[in-house]
């Protein structure tokens, strides 16, 4: 099979291969590559794909692929590359008389404009007679020099040449940019990750996708953009209804997916009213469960089970309290590990076979181990990608339902032993008590910070402290940008 060179975006590195695999599944394209060729530190990967047309199909909705070229040669220098390209003159004739252009690009370094013509002229041996057109040529050839990620190394070590197949759909990131979105909340997921999740969930026209913690509906928008029908629910109706004229519905209008964002309902996913259909209702479940940091997870009930009413309460005016239009039932905190276990079990019961569950799992980096992931015999782990924020990270988990649920089988380890009561074994799970641990970092930080500031002041006085604060502020801003959550208060 012909060889192609994929150039990925050099970010969200852990998500790139899983997305590529998902795209190949969606478009039914067979791709072969050597996993050893792939490195998180490089944007390049050589793959074998049956045809040019199939390679182009991978790009239709790719978020983490920048470019694919049909690879004509790979070398250790421009001369070596030219020699490699010369070995296959049979590739040239079909481009002999069409308009074309050559582009020179460099990864991890720069090639000056004035040096580019000389590089291009090294490839004059192809003898193309067509017109050179810098705008909209019939075919574009790419000359790529790779310096690698090391900022101190500006000398290219690998060179590629090939015919451009096309670019990914990274412009969608801008289209779904939360800054331009009319209705957002403080837990709105950033555009790029929402789009990647829609790919992981294999959203295509005709499928039904559900988000049980819908919030402001980020995932409904991206999944609907790729053609799926979407529905969401949340225990808190305020986010669904929105503010004034902005709501999930107005966002759907903004992205022109109104007909595919069907409904948003208010209920607690622990007490879900979905009718049980044996073969499953949903083709995918895409969600970001509340971690308890920005938005606290809640479930129906009272903290103290003894206080929970078992009979309806009659008010003085002779009506039952729960029949009032403004009745809001009491809720209690919902521990992260329970949320995740319930979510997985919900997926087991309500996904169709072949359907996917795509969700975020926050973990404390030091305590995380792969065994922390709740498992179920009907669900197969497809991908587990980490987005790190230092001491904590979140993982995008993709699972696929591979077998019908027999109606009995419960969650496997580690959650198999996890009863609702807190046993010692649950305490060791990387996302157990996530909220408390997250806030504990803050306390630790502040005591450490006080110590650092004191030392700085003793040594360098005010100036030193000011310089430190400035650099810390910069770091914080970067981290905030990474979490990419809009700082608009939802409430």
């Amino acid at each position, binding site marked *: 099979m012909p060889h192609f060179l994929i150039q990925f975006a050099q970010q969200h590195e852990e998500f790139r291969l899983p997305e590529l695999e998902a795209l190949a599944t969606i478009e039914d394209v067979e791709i072969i590559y050597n996993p050893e060729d792939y490195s998180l530190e490089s944007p390049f990967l050589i793959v074998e794909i049956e045809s040019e047309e199939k390679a182009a199909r991978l790009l239709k909705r790719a978020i983490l692929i920048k470019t694919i070229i049909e690879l004509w040669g790979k070398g250790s220098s421009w001369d070596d590359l030219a020699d490699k390209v010369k070995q296959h003159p049979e590739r040239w004739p079909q481009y002999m008389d069409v308009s074309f252009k050559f582009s020179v690009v460099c990864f991890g370094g720069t090639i000056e404009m004035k040096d580019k013509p000389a590089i291009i002229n090294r490839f004059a041996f192809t003898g193309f007679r067509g017109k050179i057109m810098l705008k909209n040529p019939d075919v574009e050839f790419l000359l790529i020099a790779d310096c690698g990620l090391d900022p101190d190394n500006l000398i290219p070590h690998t060179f590629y040449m090939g015919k451009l197949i096309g670019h990914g759909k990274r412009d969608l990131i801008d289209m779904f940019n939360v800054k331009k979105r009319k209705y957002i909340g403080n837990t709105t997921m950033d555009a790029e990750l929402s789009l990647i999740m829609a790919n992981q969930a294999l959203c295509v*026209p*005709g*499928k*039904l996708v559900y988000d049980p913690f819908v919030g402001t509906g980020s995932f409904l928008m991206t999944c609907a953009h790729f053609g799926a*029908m979407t529905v969401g*629910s949340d*225990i808190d*109706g305020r986010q*669904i*209804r929105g503010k004034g004229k902005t709501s999930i*519905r107005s966002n759907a209008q903004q992205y022109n997916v*109104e*007909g*595919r964002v*069907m*409904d*948003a*309902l*208010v*209920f*607690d996913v622990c*007490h*879900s*009213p*979905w*009718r*049980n*259909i044996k*073969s499953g*209702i949903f*083709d995918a479940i895409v969600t970001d469960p509340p971690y308890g940091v920005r938005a606290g997870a809640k479930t*129906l*009930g*009272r903290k103290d089970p003894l206080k*929970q*009413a*078992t*009979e*309806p*309460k009659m008010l003085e005016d002779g009506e039952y*309290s*729960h*029949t009032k*239009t403004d*009745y*809001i*039932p*009491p809720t209690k905190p919902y521990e992260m590990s329970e949320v995740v276990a319930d979510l997985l079990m919900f997926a087991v019961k309500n996904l169709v076979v072949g359907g996917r569950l795509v969700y975020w799992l926050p973990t404390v980096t030091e305590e995380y181990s792969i065994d922390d992931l709740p498992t179920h015999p009907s669900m197969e782990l497809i991908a587990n990608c980490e987005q790190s924020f230092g001491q904590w990270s979140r993982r995008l988990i993709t699972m696929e339902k591979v077998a019908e649920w027999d109606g009995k089988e419960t969650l496997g380890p580690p959650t198999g032993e996890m009863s609702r009561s807190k046993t010692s074994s649950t305490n060791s799970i990387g996302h157990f008590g996530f909220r408390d641990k997250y806030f504990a970092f803050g306390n630790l930080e502040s005591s450490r910070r006080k110590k650092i500031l004191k030392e700085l002041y003793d040594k360098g006085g005010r100036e030193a402290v000011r310089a430190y604060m400035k650099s810390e502020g910069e770091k914080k801003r970067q981290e905030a940008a990474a979490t990419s959550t809009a700082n608009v208060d939802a409430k």
Partner: protein
Amino acid sequence: MLQCHVKGCNANNFPLELQEVVLEEQEAELNEDFLRNMLGKLEYEALVATCLKLNIQDLPPTIPEDAAYNDDFLQKLHHALLETHVITGKMVCPNCQHTYVIRDGIPNMLLAEHEV
């Protein structure tokens, strides 16, 4: 698609009966793949009964054998499922009489304290 989920209300809890509804029609693009996908998931008789209550009378009483490729039928199903929106109203459980209120097109399916 929804059933009553009050604790202990396990029989005769579907379909929820719509009452005092205000409907709105919104044109939507016909999505045949989706309708085919839903055919196996719908409780068709319940859908027809519900539609009759809402004065949508064009759905045939039984599902046609060639439903998946019957354009006329799919168009009608599309209209009932995707173009008809209940803006306000109530959904009442035929068994325990629990009333779920629909406001601004958003059904409130939360249970009361004593029902979980």
